[in-house]
């Protein structure tokens, strides 16, 4: 069973059409949950870290939230340049800095 599950696998939005990406996780103790953006042919780029349920972080059109079982990445009024793959990863307590990644969500925003 996967520890980190992201849904949907792919999402196509019209420019300006807000939506949310989901990351659900099953770990016994969460040290941190991380969101990354990855463009084709590039390495993942760090976006946010969330540490405890109820925490929220924002950056431009992106807002990440965390509950005890899942995280959401909300995208408000997306633009075509937001098109990318969004990765979620968790670090368990006692995991010695290891991250477990989900398979990612490919977002396409049409003009």
């Amino acid at each position: 069973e996967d520890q980190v599950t992201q849904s949907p696998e792919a999402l196509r939005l019209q420019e300006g059409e807000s939506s949310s990406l989901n990351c659900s996780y099953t770990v016994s103790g969460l040290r941190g949950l991380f969101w990354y953006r990855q463009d084709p042919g590039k390495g993942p780029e760090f976006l946010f870290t969330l540490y405890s349920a109820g925490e929220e972080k924002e950056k431009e059109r992106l807002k990440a939230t965390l509950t005890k079982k899942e995280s959401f990445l909300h995208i408000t009024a997306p633009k075509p340049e937001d098109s990318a793959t969004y990765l979620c990863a968790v670090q368990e307590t006692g995991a010695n800095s290891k991250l477990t990644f989900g398979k990612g969500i490919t977002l396409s925003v049409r003009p």
Partner: protein
Amino acid sequence: DVKVTQSSRYLVKRTGEKVFLECVQDMDHENMFWYRQDPGLGLRLIYFSYDVKMKEKGDIPEGYSVSREKKERFSLILESASTNQTSMYLCASSLGQGRSQHFGDGTRLSIL
């Protein structure tokens, strides 16, 4: 900004060759990581290192080894390359537990 540099963007090797992938970070990070990324499988951890000369196996270490002689440099070694090791290889570094990992741009390795 943290910079993680991987020595090659693209590499083509033959089966049976010994292959070295190099990674350097410039932020004095304690931890360094090697992943491979394959379609439908996501990012999978091969090896990581939490100090110079210290290493630990990740989820898929078979067929690989690593070397960390200096804090800033972490090398991935394919002892005898095989076609199923064709993949995108990503290096990352981090300050420590609970801190984000910062990635290089990857090496796309093809084994023929």
